[in-house]
């Protein structure tokens, strides 16, 4: 069972994700309460991300939330993305603000 490291650019956090589970499930191991977990079936769009680097397999997603153009630019719903290598991602949609806030807070702590 392969396991990969997933890096979130916005918050400088890394989580582990098995190849047979979707990124959102892995992300929940961060233990954060603010991760918007919606329908978990590619329909509601709250877990939208952009895969910046890495290999993945994506399942079917709502066109209302991920257009063909977006999909070609590696934008996807985390609940439909299965990792095939280590991945770096940016958070989009409803999750964005919370993750940026975490990053700003951690930067302030460091300085």
């Amino acid at each position, binding site marked *: 069972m392969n396991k990969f490291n997933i890096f979130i650019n916005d918050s400088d956090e890394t989580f582990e994700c098995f190849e047979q589970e979707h990124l959102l499930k892995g992300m929940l191991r961060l233990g954060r309460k603010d991760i918007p977990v919606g329908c*978990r079936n590619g*329909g*509601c769009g709250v877990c939208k991300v952009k895969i910046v680097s890495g290999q993945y397999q994506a399942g079917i997603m709502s066109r209302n939330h991920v257009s063909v153009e977006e999909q070609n630019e590696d934008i996807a719903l985390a609940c439909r993305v299965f990792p095939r290598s280590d991945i770096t991602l940016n958070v989009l949609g409803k999750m964005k603000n919370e993750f940026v806030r975490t990053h700003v807070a951690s930067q302030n702590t460091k300085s």
Partner: protein
Amino acid sequence: MAITGVMRPGHVMLNVLDIDESVKHYCEHMGLIETDRDDQGRVYLKCWDEHDWFSVVLQKNDSPGMDHMAFKVDNQASLLRFEENLKKFGCNVERIAAGELNHCGERVRFDSPTGHTFELYTEKEVYGNGLPTTNPAPWPEGLQGMQAVRFDHCLLYGDDLDGTVKLFVEALEFDVAEQVVDGELQIAAFLSCSHKAHDIAFIRNEEKNKIHHASFLLNTWENVLRAADIISMKDIPLDIGPTRHGLTRGQTIYFFDPSGNRNEVFCEDSYRYPDSPVLTWTPDHLGQAIFYHSRELNDRFLNVVT
């Protein structure tokens, strides 16, 4: 009490991303029965204790959501009256030929101020509930999963709540049974055309034409707990529950279908008569109105729609 005019929700057509996964969910997990497929690939389902041929139609689409919800009307005279009312109200009204949906008679389709499409019809072929009409047993054998009894209602989200509530009350003769109001502003309206706590409900929301959930009746609280077991057993994404609503008093659990459309199964909500008072909830009690025990508003339950 005689139920005249609009009798009940007759069916909901849901858009799904994958037909096979959806049929497995609605049939094997929820207990609906497949009764037909058509040349467009649409799948017709019914709950066991419904006599008409179908109450759910699954249609493949690239986005989930509700295509339309249809109500069964008692007779042609009522249908013509409602059709006139809808035209006077300002709806775009069109007739859909009998047979466009298998086993269903002519339908009157109309739009609404919240952007949802609805239909009325008077005829649907009878499939039966698996029991004889003379000396019937209490339930048929061989039911699957949650054993949903009937398609009960939908809760829909849209912008012009006032307009759509006015349409259902004035043009279709529904009553507001229960509501949430913030001062003068109605936030939510639960409407009934029968003895039920609600046959359709609406919540004010920025975006038009969204569905919060399609709901199915179970008979007992024990069956709701058993549905919760099935949700975990079959790895179905749980939304919330088992719990109780203050609004409608329903004992309930919510989960998502394989395309992200929310489903509810529930039991033992309240009832009404034409002279029943309108029940009102205020924003300071919204937590109780939605989840009577925890009283905690939940971002996913309030905001995730398809």
